[in-house]
């Protein structure tokens, strides 16, 4: 392995073979998960291997997991969404107001679900429009949404926790099908839908293109701004789904739901091998990333380690995971000497993101067509 040259411009991506491909990278995640499970088995034995415990891990992972799927799209598309937790909180509060619950009582609890989804998608739409047409950095726009959405949730809920009264709703979302919790099934369905959307549709392909090289995508005829909006709406939608899930799990709608979800989701996506600069990433990686993240927490809890220690360990695992990803991607576990450059031969070939930000001659910059275009 050590003899293989670190990635060069010529062979980046193709060169070092199997482990650098998406399959190989995900295999690395599977290995990591297996190691984690072995540690769990050794330290906590039967308590870890217990079916209920496995379901606990999955149930915990499923809510953030759904958010992470949306986040995967946004990040592959070259953006970031810091507002996911806040949007979920707002959706949960909006869906559990007295008025909504009254309507749900009169019609069906599905009204609450649709409300949550609509609020999530709506907040995502605001994010998307501000980013794509207002040309704000995604980081800033969604940071603003993070504080604004949570504030709005507090106003609506009057800082009180709203109890979900509809028992059919609670029965459905806290129930299970053949022993598998509904929440886990929802996560699985969202993940499968996400996989298909990313890998089998024009939407997915355009997402890779927009994140990989926005200017090239624009000049290839893709409506980059419109697509960017769709990505944030999708992310908001997954927040709405997560809101419904957490309402089912906690039986409440609250402005404190979803705290730090943005960190967990971004961490899961990154652990899963999605590049933060966009253009590359997988749903399978994200799913594995979420599960690894929550299994780690579970192993800590079973061993009676404090949540503070857990937080430290999470930080460490993010760094280790990303370091390993990079080594796997270049087919070399050795730390590269400075100057050999990162995968892709940084010296000469700019990263795709670099290519977008630098040296294009278009005055409008990446991001493209002008807002408010009208025929002359």
């Amino acid at each position: 392995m050590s003899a293989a040259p670190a990635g060069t411009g010529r062979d980046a991506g193709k060169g070092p073979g199997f482990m650098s491909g998406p399959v190989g990278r995900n295999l690395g995640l599977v290995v990591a998960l297996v190691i984690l499970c072995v540690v769990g088995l050794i330290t906590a034995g039967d308590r870890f291997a217990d079916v209920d415990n496995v379901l606990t891990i999955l149930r915990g992972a499923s809510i953030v997991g759904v958010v992470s799927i949306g986040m995967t799209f946004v990040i592959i598309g070259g953006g970031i969404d810091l507002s996911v937790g806040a949007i979920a909180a707002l959706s949960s509060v909006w869906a559990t107001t007295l008025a909504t619950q009254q309507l749900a009582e009169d019609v069906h609890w599905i009204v609450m679900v649709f409300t949550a989804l609509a609020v999530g998608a709506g907040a995502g739409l605001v994010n998307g429009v501000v980013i794509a047409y207002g040309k704000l950095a995604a980081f800033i726009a969604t940071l603003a949404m993070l504080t604004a959405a949570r504030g709005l949730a507090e106003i609506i809920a009057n800082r009180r926790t709203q109890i979900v009264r509809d028992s059919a709703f609670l029965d459905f979302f806290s129930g299970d099908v053949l022993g598998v919790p509904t929440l886990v099934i929802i996560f699985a369905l969202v993940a499968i839908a996400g996989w298909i959307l990313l890998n089998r549709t024009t939407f997915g392909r355009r997402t890779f293109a927009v994140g990989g090289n926005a200017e090239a995508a624009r000049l290839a005829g893709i409506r980059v701004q419109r697509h960017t909006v769709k990505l944030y709406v999708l992310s908001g939608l997954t927040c709405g789904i997560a809101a419904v899930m957490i309402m089912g799990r906690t039986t409440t709608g609250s402005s404190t739901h979803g705290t730090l979800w943005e960190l967990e989701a971004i961490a899961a996506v990154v652990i899963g091998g999605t590049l933060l600069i966009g253009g590359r990433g997988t749903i399978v990686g994200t799913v594995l990333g979420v599960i690894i993240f929550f299994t780690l927490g579970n192993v800590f809890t079973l061993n009676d380690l404090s949540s503070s220690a857990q937080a430290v360990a999470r930080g460490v695992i993010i760094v280790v995971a990303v370091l390993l990803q990079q080594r796997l991607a270049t087919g070399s576990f050795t730390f590269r000497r400075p100057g050999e450059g990162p995968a892709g031969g940084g010296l000469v070939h700019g990263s795709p993101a670099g290519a977008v930000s630098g040296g294009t001659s278009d005055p409008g910059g990446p991001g493209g067509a002008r807002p408010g275009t009208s025929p002359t």
Partner: protein
Amino acid sequence: MSGPDRTTAGGAPLLEMHGIVKTFPGVRALDGVDLDVRAGEVHCLLGQNGAGKSTLIKVLAGAHQPDAGRITWRGEEVRLASPQAAMGLGIATIYQELDLVSGLTVADNIFLGREQSRFGITRPAVANRAAAELLARLGHPEIRPTAEVGSLPAASQQMVSIARALSQDAKLIVMDEPSAVLDNEEVERLFAVVRDLTAHDVAVVYISHRLEEIRQIGDRITVLKDGSTVATGLPACETETREVITLMTGRTIEYVFPERRSEVARDEAPLLEVEGLGLRGSFGDVSFVVRPGEILGLAGLVGAGRSEILETVFGARRATTGTVRVGGKKLRNGDVGSTVAAGVGLAPEERKSQALLLGDSVYRNISISSLARFARAGFLARGAERTAAQELTRSLDVRPADVDREVRTLSGGNQQKVVLARWLLRNCRVLLLDEPTRGVDVGARSEIYALVRDLADRGVAVVVVSSEIPEVLGLADRVLVIADGAVVAEERADALDEHRVLDLVMEGTAHRGTPVVTMQHEGDVA
């Protein structure tokens, strides 16, 4: 340096490389390369894309470690273990994509990594003074040390790179296609700098695709082909262009242009109609038509507004005045999506940053503009998509033929074919080509030319922009000469030659005076 016998220029061997071998998985990039450079000479390194030039200069810069071979520097064997080691010896490399930090000032960039400081506190005044001295020595005192590098034109940025090399007391400066981003006048000034450097015993390794430049500036030539040295130490003045090309390609052709079709039907309805098109601050009142099967060339100097005209026609820039019609239908101003939908394709000037998804596979790069064709209810039929891409890569002879390969790994000529394949798949009726052979080696050029002509013969209307006037004249049926953002002449291509075009450009520039002001005025009126 002006003496008739430049082959004796320079003296003691400065750098010698013997039998350099460098393998990457699956590719033997360098297979026994020899290079010797003398102090104070301009040594030209020639070769087609993929011949190994880039790998060789990266070995020289310490960025790649050779698998075998010997490097001697001033008679002593050395190992260039890192870029720092190479710089320490006095080898500086100026890459094609300039490696400057655009947000920092000129002085900051020149002394990057070796900041002028005392007790960790930077001393900007000292740095600025030293930077000003260096730039003055390069004959560019007009570049202010405090200016932000990002705000400078490409030529000035290049001078900053050279100043950085000088500040490191470089004895050997490698320049990778420095003229690619410069216009003629800027190239002349660059040459003046290079001559001054060599007069001070600095050696320059000069890489360029433009053979005429090499005759102007070079002392000796080394030619690479397929990772090996095929000729070394040829005198730059006396070696015939034909011979150099033969060495590079194994063929004896310079530019082979395909034959024009007998006559473009004058009465046929024009496919592309551009009327009174203008872009504030760039060009104004440009009108032309292109009929099916016709190739229109836009000739002019860099900065004349050629690329801007293409990009505005394509909708990538929003026109301040004028209209564009395709097949009689007016296009929405500044809307690439609807322009593409109308059947127009653009192969932009900056292939890597404006056209390609470098990390994506060849077939995905080809199908990206035609996804709707392979989709039912948004779901892609990937089999059909790959097959279609495969057929195109086969008919365009894209090498290697593997459509799953990352497009990044292809040579410039093959990348350009991928861009053309994208628009072929889209069945576009109007093709806009901006510098179609930039970074494409001599051999692959004629293939691109033949391809463009073939497209025209199939009824596509083509507009070609190139800074190489012979290319425009050889490829196009009709030529618009552009000077300072305005059309100064329209002629049949076979009625023009390079001198005539240059004369027209000069006249046009003289007549129009200060064009930018004029055009802003026009824009305001509109």
